[in-house]
């Protein structure tokens, strides 16, 4: 299979391979990664054809573009040799085409004059067509990969442009700064689009977000062609009666308005107010046949219990008979607010997975975000369910904590051995106060003290090798 060079953005590194693979799966294309490094924006892959390459990259958020690989090498001499071997047979095809020829450097670069010299050194390809910077028939690019603060590039690639991705356009279009209606915890547009790609959103599919807020995830899913609906425990965010997160913004803004802004209203089924632990959606009894699912995917960012409170329906204490009676008498009065109680985050995660199992079609995906304190960055915390296969884990690191995007695939009935469905009853944190119920919340407000001490230790260890000139142990620290 021909080799292609994927030019990634150097951002959200742990998501890049996962997104690329998801896009290949959606396009039904066999993709094989030949070389990939977290530290480099250049990745070489095997793909069956230009058409396949275009299909995979067109809706990528983390790739900028894809190029047919015409050569590579650690020096320009090696690069030119490689270009001769790999691509000499292709030169004549582009002999008279209008073309663009550019040079880019990662962590380094050249002056305009030096760039011209580099371009001229490819003169042996003998293109006679007119150079054209805008809309040429064919575009070529030299890629220089530098180490930090090093004058000479460590590696070079040369490629013919196959397709650019929708990254820049989509990021601009869905930018939260320009969205009419957002809330304080709206997820960054780039990450919602990325989540939609990783969750295998595709035209004709049905997607649901149980914690929709102002609709960031459903909008991203609708952008890639899915029909979407959502729900939230707070009806004010959906109807837009809770005020705006923007200072000085007044007037009626709601989720429908956002869909209208992006001209995606046709793909929006609507929303309702509900709590996941008492969902009104059809739930499949666990022993029934799993082909009865109806959602192609679920994407969500559940409340972590810090900036957004984690509450479900219910009362902190068992209601007295008189209190029950008073609820019963008054619940139909306009303005009645049902009681809510704090809930355990780990219990909520398991509830989400159980809900996914009961509603997803076979091979349907659920992508959910969850926080993980850095000092607990262990695989064990990731929730699991016998009917779900964990397909990827991506990490977004912040200064003192990090969060993960977990993606699971609903297993087919044939993949789930009989008897595994005896639900594992877990003991959750007991208590009625939010901090009792949520390990992460407690850590967050304690300021991640353990992490701080770990950091100090880290700095101390880094200082030591320099004093005794022990290079080997310094390398250990890096890993």
């Amino acid at each position, binding site marked *: 299979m021909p080799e292609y060079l994927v030019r990634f953005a150097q951002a959200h590194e742990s998501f890049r391979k996962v997104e690329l693979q998801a896009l290949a799966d959606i396009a039904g294309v066999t993709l094989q990664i030949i070389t990939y490094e977290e530290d480099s924006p250049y990745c070489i892959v095997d793909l069956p054809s230009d058409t396949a390459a275009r299909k995979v990259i067109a809706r990528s958020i983390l790739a900028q573009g894809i190029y047919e690989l015409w050569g590579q090498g650690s020096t320009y001499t090696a690069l030119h040799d490689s270009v001769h071997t790999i691509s000499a047979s292709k030169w004549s095809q582009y002999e008279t085409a209008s073309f663009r020829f550019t040079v880019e450097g990662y962590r380094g670069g050249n002056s305009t004059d030096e760039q011209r010299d580099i371009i001229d050194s490819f003169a042996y390809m003998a293109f006679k067509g007119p150079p054209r910077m805008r809309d040429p028939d064919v575009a070529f690019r030299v890629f220089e990969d530098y180490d930090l603060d090093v004058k000479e590039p460590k590696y070079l690639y040369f490629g013919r442009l196959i397709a650019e991705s929708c990254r820049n356009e989509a990021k601009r279009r869905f930018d939260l700064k320009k969205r009419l209606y957002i809330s304080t915890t709206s997820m960054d547009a780039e990450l919602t689009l990325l989540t939609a790609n990783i969750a295998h959103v595709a*035209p*004709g*599919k*049905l997607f649901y977000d149980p914690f929709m807020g102002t609709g960031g995830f459903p909008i991203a899913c609708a952008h890639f062609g899915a*029909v979407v*609906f959502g*729900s939230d*425990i707070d*009806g004010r965010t*959906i*109807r837009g009666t809770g005020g705006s997160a923007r200072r000085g913004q007044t007037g009626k803004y*709601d989720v*429908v308005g956002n869909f209208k802004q992006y001209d995606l*209203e*046709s*793909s929006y*089924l*609507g*929303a*309702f*107010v*509900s*709590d996941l632990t*008492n*969902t*009104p*959606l*059809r*739930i499949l*009894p666990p022993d029934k046949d799993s082909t009865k699912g*109806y959602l*192609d995917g679920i994407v969500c960012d559940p409340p972590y219990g810090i900036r957004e409170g984690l509450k479900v*329906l*219910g*009362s902190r204490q068992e*209601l007295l008979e008189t*209190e*029950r*009676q008073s*609820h*019963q008498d008054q*619940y*139909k009065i306009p303005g*009645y607010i*049902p*009681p809510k109680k704090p809930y355990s985050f780990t219990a909520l995660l398991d509830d989400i997975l159980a809900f996914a199992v009961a509603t997803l*079609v076979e091979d349907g995906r659920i992508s959910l975000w969850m926080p993980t304190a850095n000092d607990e960055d262990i695989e064990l915390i990731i929730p699991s369910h016998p009917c779900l296969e964990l397909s990827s884990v991506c990490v977004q690191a912040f200064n003192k904590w990090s969060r993960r995007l977990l993606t699971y695939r609903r297993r087919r009935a044939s993949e789930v051995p009989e008897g595994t469905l005896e639900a594992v009853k877990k003991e959750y944190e007991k208590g009625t106060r939010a901090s009792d119920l949520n390990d992460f919340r407690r850590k967050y407000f304690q300021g991640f003290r353990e992490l701080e001490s770990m950091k100090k230790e880290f700095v101390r260890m880094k200082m030591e090798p320099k004093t005794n000139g022990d290079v080997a142990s310094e390398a250990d620290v890096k890993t």
Partner: protein
Amino acid sequence: MKLLTLNFLTCAIKTCKTNPASFPLHPRDAELEIVEADMNLPFLRNILPRLMWEELRGICGELGLPELPATPPTPADLVEASNAVHGSAEADEEEPSQTAKDLHRILLETCIQEGKLVCGACEHEYAVKEGVANFLLPGHLV
């Protein structure tokens, strides 16, 4: 909320969910609105086997909408039988049939704006306001 949503909604009360009468929810005093939407054939085709046909027919009857056919359409019924047998390029330009248009009209263009959704088993009423249904349960029912 578009009418298709009712294909997925039951009563939110846990003890009620096991009762077959909790699905579908019955619209009452419903104010309907037609909101034009783009035809989406791939979606109709995908969702067709997941429709609870009998129940949807019932809801249409209760709302006084045009009656749905007695048996659910097949995927082939959704596209206009093309008379050009040769030419596979036609596949991209499929023409939706009248069946598809009717289904689209009912499921994806008819919206409930105000009213109630009532559980057939426990009679609990869920209010719909500004097109958003409220399924939060009062204190004594959780």
